[in-house]
């Protein structure tokens, strides 16, 4: 047998990151060999990240054996088919970043090239009209994707809007049933081994010491271990992502249920509306350098889709991530590892990736550097790709109505983002390994390629026109066959779980 297996794991902090980590580890690591302890304090609130999620969350739930209907009921979830961006390119503009590709690759050429060509010929259709997810979202209709790949209704995926606090509670129940030990208490001291600086134990306010071989820092912005003890530097990206505050409030949902998140650009940031079954989650992300708290609050409160049901709460943050999210015997997961604002709903996704990769590169007590290095490289790559994608939304805009937008338009951007933007701008090409549907967001933001794929000029335009029109009609026809989102959810909530 391996000489030195890890036996004790301590997760510092509950909340979404802590309980997702606990659930995944207890599911993977047999209780006979591993002791998993989660320390949290009821006195310390959680941020409750990630009410809007990405489709990957389904894989996480499936890996835990969680039934979708149980999940939907427990987290008051609704369905999400994408994000609608309003007023981002220009005031009055709107586009969808859908959970589907737009159109089909035909003759080896991506669909958006055909659309770009047709636009030059006077076509006025919008790109969203060729996306099943975007059109279903607009029509407020949904059914799970058809498994028959030939079907028009197979070409999309979906995610959820959830009550993140309820999700953490749901996973806490799951974890505790499977043997995770929850310790109530506030950590006062983190103790390190003198010879190598590894974390030895944590001391709680009641004097209790909890030791472990591996510590997972899910302490949120406090970053108790990765920052305060191990002092892993934080790479600051606030010059690229200058929003640093958010005011959040819950409200009644007096409008029809939308199967998508709404992200509306404001003069110094943007505002979200996330519908869950019984209420609406609302927030206004802003740059305090360009807008004061009261003004941000006023904008939020005067644009709520229903009566506020909680007191507004203000959060502060700084965009960036740790130089290493795994250092010595501590892995930081969640907000302790870094922060990227929720514009593309990536918080839970980053938690999930942190957990998945931790399991993939799970250490023994030797903590071999190669595995740690691989983990850090992989997580850094996720952070960089998402960072670039979010910056893209701010930087590619024609808005000129505030100092904030002027700054975003004119700021310097990361070299790798510049590379990707030039690739798209010159010839409409995308790097498929990137995060998100670049063509939809670039075009939605107003970044039109200077040139579409010139091979299209070798095809008769009438043929292209006919092909596109047929495709558009097939999308419309397919969407009409779906039940409404209300009908679908009602059925899911009422059915008894199998």
């Amino acid at each position, binding site marked *: 047998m391996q000489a030195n297996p890890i036996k004790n794991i301590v997760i510092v902090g509950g909340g979404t990151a802590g309980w997702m980590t606990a659930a995944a580890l207890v599911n993977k690591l047999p209780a006979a060999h591993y002791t998993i302890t989660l320390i949290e304090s009821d006195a310390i609130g959680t941020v409750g990240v990630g009410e809007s999620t990405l489709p990957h969350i389904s894989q996480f739930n499936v890996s835990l054996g969680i039934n979708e209907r149980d999940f939907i009921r427990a987290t008051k979830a609704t369905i999400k088919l994408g994000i609608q961006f309003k007023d981002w390119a220009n005031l009055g503009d709107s586009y969808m970043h859908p959970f589907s590709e737009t159109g089909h690759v035909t003759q080896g050429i991506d669909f958006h090239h055909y659309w770009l060509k047709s636009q030059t010929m006077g076509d006025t259709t919008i790109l969203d009209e060729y996306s099943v997810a975007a059109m279903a979202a607009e029509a407020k209709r949904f059914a799970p994707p058809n498994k028959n790949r030939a079907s028009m209704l197979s070409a999309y995926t979906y995610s959820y809007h959830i009550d993140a606090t309820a999700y953490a509670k749901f996973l806490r129940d799951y974890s505790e049933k499977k043997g995770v030990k929850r310790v109530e208490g506030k950590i006062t001291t983190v103790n390190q081994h003198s010879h190598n600086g590894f974390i030895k134990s944590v001391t709680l306010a009641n004097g209790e010491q909890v030791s472990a071989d591996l510590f997972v820092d899910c302490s949120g912005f406090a970053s108790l271990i990765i920052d305060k003890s191990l002092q892993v530097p934080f790479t600051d990206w606030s010059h690229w992502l200058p929003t640093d505050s958010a005011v959040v409030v819950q409200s009644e949902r007096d409008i029809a249920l939308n199967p998508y998140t709404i992200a509306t650009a404001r003069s110094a940031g943007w505002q979200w509306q996330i519908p869950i079954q019984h209420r609406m989650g609302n927030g206004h992300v802003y740059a305090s350098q360009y807008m004061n708290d009261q003004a941000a609050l006023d904008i939020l409160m005067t644009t709520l889709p229903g009566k506020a049901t909680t007191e507004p709460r203000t959060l502060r943050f700084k965009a960036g991530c740790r130089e290493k999210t795994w250092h010595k015997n501590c892995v930081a997961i969640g907000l302790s590892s870094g922060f990227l604002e929720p514009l593309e709903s990536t918080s839970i996704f980053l938690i999930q990736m942190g957990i998945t990769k931790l399991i993939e590169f799970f250490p023994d007590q030797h903590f071999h550097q190669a595995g740690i290095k691989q983990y850090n490289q992989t997580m850094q790559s996720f952070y960089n790709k998402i960072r670039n994608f979010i910056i893209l939304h701010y930087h590619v805009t024609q808005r000129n109505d505030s100092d904030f937008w002027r700054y975003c338009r004119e700021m310097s951007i990361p070299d790798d983002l510049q590379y990707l933007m030039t690739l798209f701008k010159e010839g409409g090409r995308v790097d498929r390994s990137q995060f998100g549907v670049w063509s939809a967001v670039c075009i939605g933001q107003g970044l039109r390629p200077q040139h579409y794929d010139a091979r299209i000029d*070798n095809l008769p335009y009438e043929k292209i026109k006919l092909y596109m029109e047929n495709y558009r009609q097939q999308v419309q026809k397919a969407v009409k066959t779906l039940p409404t989102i209300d009908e679908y959810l009602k059925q899911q909530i009422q059915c008894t779980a199998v």
Partner: protein
Amino acid sequence: MTDKATNNQAIHHVVIVGGDTIGWTAAMGLARGLQGQRVNIILINEGDNQQCNLEPELIHTSNHVLDFHQSMGVNEPYLFAHGHGQYTCARQYQHWITEQADFFIGNDSFLSTFNGFGIHHLASLCQHKNVSDYSFAAQIAKQHKSIPPVNERPKQLGPFNTGMIINSQGYKGFIRGAALHLGVKVINSSIEVVALDNDTGFVKQLTLTNGQQLPVDLLIDNSGSHSKIMQASLAVDYKELRDDIPFNTLFSITLPSNTEKFINKHYTTITANKEGWLEHSILQGTSYYTQLCQNVGDEEHTLIDNFLTEIGADKSAGKQINKYPLRFGHSERFFHNNCIVIGHAAGYVGSPSISNLVLAQRAISRLLDLFPTKACFSSTAAEYNRLTNNDYGEANDMFMLYLYLAATNEPNSIPKWAKAKEELSANLQQKIALFEHTGRYEDQLNAMINSPTWINLLNYCCRKTKCYDPLLAALDEQQMQLHLTQLKGDISTQVEKLPTIS
């Protein structure tokens, strides 16, 4: 006409220089991919005697050759009926490991798993370093059995892909026929003058020795390792790996297969020897041998004698030996201005796991994916270069892993390879370090080489350590042992049922 309109003009004139297998592969691939696009594709065949078109008589490929043909609309039965090739399902390695006579690596798509762990983890824990015992493909090869059709391969034993060994001349004829059928025009001549545009530096016209002048929108340079266009005309450097890789020559010979010594087989044998390595395949009754070595000239006759001795041939066969100079390395850029290099002009980092044909097929698919306009935007070229560079980096790492394997196991008998241990790229060092104690490999492997190839070779490189996932500690070792025994038995039973190769 505006600048914008000019930039976005579609390419109409594609000229391919070099009519070897790779040149015709490019011609066929582009003709198929651009079908209906009114693109005029001309291949300049500089003749079989030109150094640039030298290629060994046999090409070994992975499953990519099948995928490439599939994407070109050529299905497997048609390819095998007309492509002058034969399925392979494994490679046999001789004399690479001190205390082990030989081992096989199957063409598995991925290794079978137990509770989510690759079988090599279990094998390592149970001290069975020979992972090929758990590879259906390797056992078929080892037992000289026929490869079952795709739909008759038991899925629970792990999926495997077939590669091909191809007679290069026969295959070239096949692919040439397809290209001509798709409208490619061939000109048997040589390039006399390469005319560049004064403003852009693009190749705008080629003048041939027969006096013909060809307009060029896009040029595919397959003119050999000292390429006439990319290197000579466009002054793009070729990054040689002479200091890292101690080989510069391939000797080859074909002989009637001696059935007393060799039975027919579905694998290539790669034998490490003091010169380099010897490869042997049998295709349709003929044995194909190649010997990789370092030939500095003054001892060429000794190298040839050793080669003949190694294969058991009479010295009189020496006259039949062909000699191919190799220039290990690759072009600094693969797409520059309106010129793209493929084949030996792009580089050579071939190993038993990856051939230049596969690298070229991937390059053609990539070119179609990023097909440029007449302006050949620098961003498109940069993306093409980035992706192609990844392929060559991966192929180079694979080559260096062979040297590392030999150097790790035979440090005294092959001293010149020992240097390889100090010349590994950062990526390869990380691959080895990651595998060494945990049996893991990075999650984003380049799809060009199947993960089982990396796993098997790394496994033998790191055979003195326990390469298994620490999480295995939580599983029952007896159960794992039982699973391995059962899997081995199941594979053996299934293999026994297969007919022996006729």
